[in-house]
C-alpha cells in the first residue's frame, strides 16, 4: 500500500464516514482543503449562534464577550498556563473515545474511567506512601491506568461477547463509577479529618507529581502529548494499528481476513480507558493531592467532545483540547466581568459539538467537484 493511499484511508471508520477516498492528487487537495474549511465554517457558525444567544438573552455585547474569552484563554502567559492545565486531562480523556472509535465503537464512559482511575491512584498512593516518591508515583500511575483500562475494557467486552450497546453501557458504567467513588471516599477510604468535603487521605506533598520546569503546568500535559503521538505512530506504522483500521472500516472484511477482532476491541478500549485513568491519576497526584468528589467535574464529558471535534485523530486532539481548555478557562472571567452564568461555556461547547456534527454533511459538497469523481 502506497503512502498516498494511507493518507486517503486516514478517514474515520464507517460510522463517522467522511468524503470518499479518491486517488487523484487534485481530489486529495480538495479533501485536505475541506478538512480545514468545514470545521472552520462550523466554528464560525457556532460563534454566531452563541453570540446571538448572549445578545438576545443576556443582553451582553457578543464582541466584548469574545474579546474577554480570548483574553481569559490565551491573552496572557498566566491564562495560557491555566488553559494548558485544563487541556491536559482533556487530551487524555479524549483518547478514551478516540481509540475505540477507530474500530467503529462509540465509547462515552470517559468520566467514569477518570474518576475510578483517580480513586485507585489515591488508594494505591496512600497504601505505599512510605516508599520513595518515585515508587509511589509509579504505583499510582499503574493503579490509575489499570482501573480505567479495565473499566472501559469491560464495556468493550460486553459489546464484543454479549452484543451490548457500548455507548449506553459505558455511560451507565460512568454512573456506577461515580457511585463507587462516593462509597469509597465516604466509607472505607475516608480520611476522618476531612469533615466538610469527604476525601481520601492525602498522598503527601513529597509524592506529588510536580510541574513542568519553566511553567506552572503539571506533567499531565506532557503525558497527554506523548500519549497522542504514541497512538498516532501506533495507528500509522504498526500492523496492529492497520488491523484496527480494517476492522473499523469493514468488520466483515476483517472477519474474512481472519483478524482476532475481540483482541483489538479489548486492546483499544483498555488503552483508551487507561488514558482516562491516567487523567484521573494526574488530577490526584498533581492537582488535588487526594481523591474526592471534585474528580467528577466533567473533564470526561468534555473529552468526548474533543475526540469528536478532532475526528478521532490523535494528533488533532492536542490543538482541539487546547481550544476547549481555553474556552473553559475563560468561563471565570465571563462570570466575573459580564455576570454570565458559569454554564455559558458549557452552552458554547454544546453548540460547537452539534454544529460540527451537522457539518459532516458538507464534506464532498462544499467545493466544486469534478464530473464523474
Amino acid at each position, binding site marked *: 500500500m502506497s503512502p498516498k493511499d494511507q493518507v486517503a484511508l486516514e478517514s474515520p*471508520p*464507517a*460510522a*463517522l*464516514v467522511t468524503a470518499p477516498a479518491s486517488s487523484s492528487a487534485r481530489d486529495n487537495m480538495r479533501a485536505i482543503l475541506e478538512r480545514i474549511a468545514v470545521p472552520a465554517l462550523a466554528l464560525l457558525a457556532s460563534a454566531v449562534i452563541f453570540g446571538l444567544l448572549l445578545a438576545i*438573552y443576556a443582553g451582553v455585547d457578543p464582541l466584548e464577550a469574545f474579546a474577554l474569552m480570548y483574553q481569559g484563554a490565551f491573552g496572557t502567559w498566566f491564562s495560557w498556563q491555566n488553559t494548558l492545565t485544563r487541556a491536559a486531562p482533556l487530551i487524555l480523556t479524549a483518547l478514551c473515545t478516540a481509540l475505540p472509535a477507530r474500530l467503529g465503537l*462509540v465509547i*462515552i464512559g470517559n468520566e467514569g474511567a477518570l474518576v475510578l482511575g483517580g480513586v485507585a491512584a489515591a488508594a494505591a498512593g496512600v497504601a505505599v506512601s512510605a516508599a520513595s516518591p518515585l515508587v509511589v508515583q509509579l504505583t499510582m500511575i499503574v493503579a490509575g491506568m489499570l482501573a480505567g483500562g479495565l473499566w472501559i475494557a469491560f464495556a468493550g467486552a*460486553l*459489546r*464484543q*461477547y*454479549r*452484543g*451490548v*450497546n457500548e*455507548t*449506553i*453501557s459505558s*455511560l*451507565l*458504567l460512568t*454512573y*456506577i463509577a461515580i*457511585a*463507587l467513588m*462516593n*462509597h469509597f471516599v*465516604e*466509607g472505607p477510604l475516608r480520611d476522618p479529618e476531612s469533615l466538610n468535603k469527604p476525601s481520601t487521605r492525602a498522598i503527601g506533598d513529597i509524592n506529588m507529581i510536580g510541574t513542568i520546569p519553566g511553567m506552572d503546568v503539571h506533567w499531565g500535559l506532557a503525558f497527554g502529548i506523548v500519549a497522542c503521538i504514541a497512538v498516532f505512530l501506533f495507528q500509522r506504522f504498526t500492523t496492529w494499528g492497520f488491523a484496527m483500521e480494517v*476492522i473499523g472500516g469493514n*468488520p*466483515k472484511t*476483517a*472477519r*474474512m481476513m*481472519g483478524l*482476532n*477482532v*475481540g*483482541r483489538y*476491541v479489548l486492546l483499544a478500549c483498555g488503552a483508551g480507558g487507561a488514558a482516562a485513568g491516567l487523567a484521573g491519576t494526574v488530577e490526584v497526584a498533581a492537582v488535588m493531592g487526594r481523591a474526592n468528589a471534585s474528580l467528577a467535574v466533567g473533564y470526561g464529558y468534555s473529552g*468526548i*467532545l474533543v475526540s*469528536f471535534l478532532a475526528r478521532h485523530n490523535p494528533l488533532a486532539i492536542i490543538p482541539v483540547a487546547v481550544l476547549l481548555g481555553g474556552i473553559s478557562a475563560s468561563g471565570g472571567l465571563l462570570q466575573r466581568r459580564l455576570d454570565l*452564568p458559569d*454554564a*455559558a461555556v*458549557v*452552552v458554547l*461547547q*454544546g*453548540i460547537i*459539538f*452539534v454544529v*460540527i*456534527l*451537522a457539518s*459532516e*454533511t458538507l464534506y464532498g459538497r462544499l467545493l466544486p467537484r469534478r464530473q464523474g469523481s
Partner: protein
Amino acid sequence: MDQSGIGLWGVPLAMLAGAIRVSTPFIFVSVGECLTERSGRINLGLEGTLVMGAMSAYGTALASGSPWLGVGVAALVGLLLGALHAGICQLPRVNDIATGIGLMLFATGLAFFLGKPFIQPKAPNLGAIDLGWWSSIPQVRQALQVNYLFVLGIALAFALAWALKTTRWGLIVRLAGESVDAALAIGTHVGRVRMIATAVGGSFAGIGGAFLSLYYPGSWNEGLSSGQGLMAVALVIFARWDPVRCLWASLLFGAAGAISPALQSVGVTEGYYLFSAAPYVLTLVLMIATCSPERSLRGAPGELGAVRQKEMRQWPGSMSTRAPIPGPGTAT
C-alpha cells in the same frame, strides 16, 4: 420520617412508593423514545430534553403560577428539541448517535444557563390524587399519593401501543422504521414521519422533565436528573420497543431507584452510595441478559440507527441491529 410503627415493612412500602413516583419520568422518556425508535431514529439526547423540560416547566410555573402551563411549555420545548434532532439527523451522512450526545450536552448546558435564576425561588407544585384515603397509616397514605402525570403516563403507554398496532398512522410509523424502501414504495414521506415521531417523542420527554421539577423531587437545581433520560433509552432496548413493556420496566426501575433512600429511612445507612447505583447496575444486567452477539434483537426496528448516505439508502453501522463485530468464534 418516622418508620417505627411499621418497622422493616417500610422498605417494600417505600419501594412501592418509589415505583410510583420515581418511575414517572422513566415512563414518559421511554415511551417517547419508543415512538421515535419505532420510526427508525435514535434520540440519545433525551437526557438533555428531560433537563430542559424540567427547567422550562419550573420557570413557567414560577412566572405564571400555573404548574400545568409549565407542563405545556415543557412539552413544547421537548417538541422543538426533538425536531432539531430530527432535522440535523436528516442531513446526509450525519450520525444520529453522535448528534444525540451533542444535543444532550447542549440542552443540559442551556438548561443550567437559562435556569440559573430559578434555583432559589419555590414554584407551585402539581397536585396529587390521594389513593390512600382508606388507610390510617401515614406511610401507606404517603406512598399512595399518585400524581396525575403518572396516570397520564400509563394511559399514554397503552394508547401508543394501541395506535402503533391498529391505526393507519401507526402502521406508517412502523413501516418507516422497518424498511425505508417499502415506505418509499407506497409513497410515504419517511423524513416527515421520523420528524414527527422524534418531535412528539421529545415532547413526552419534556413532560417527564416537568414531573421532576414540579412534583418529585419538586425543585429545580443542576443535579435534578442523574441519567434518568439515558436509562430510559436503555430501557427501551430492554422492553423490546413495546410501549406497554416500557411501562413495566419503568416501574421496576423506579423501585430500584427507591432502594437506597428506603433503606436509609429505616436506619440502614451502610453502603448508601452502593445501593444508589442499583438502577444503573440493574439496567446493565438486564442489557447483558437480553442482548445477544449472534442475532439482532427481536422486535428491533429494521432501519434503526442507519446513517443516511444519500436518498435514504441504508448504511452499515447502525446501533443495535448492525451486524455485531465478529467474535473469535465466528472468525474463519
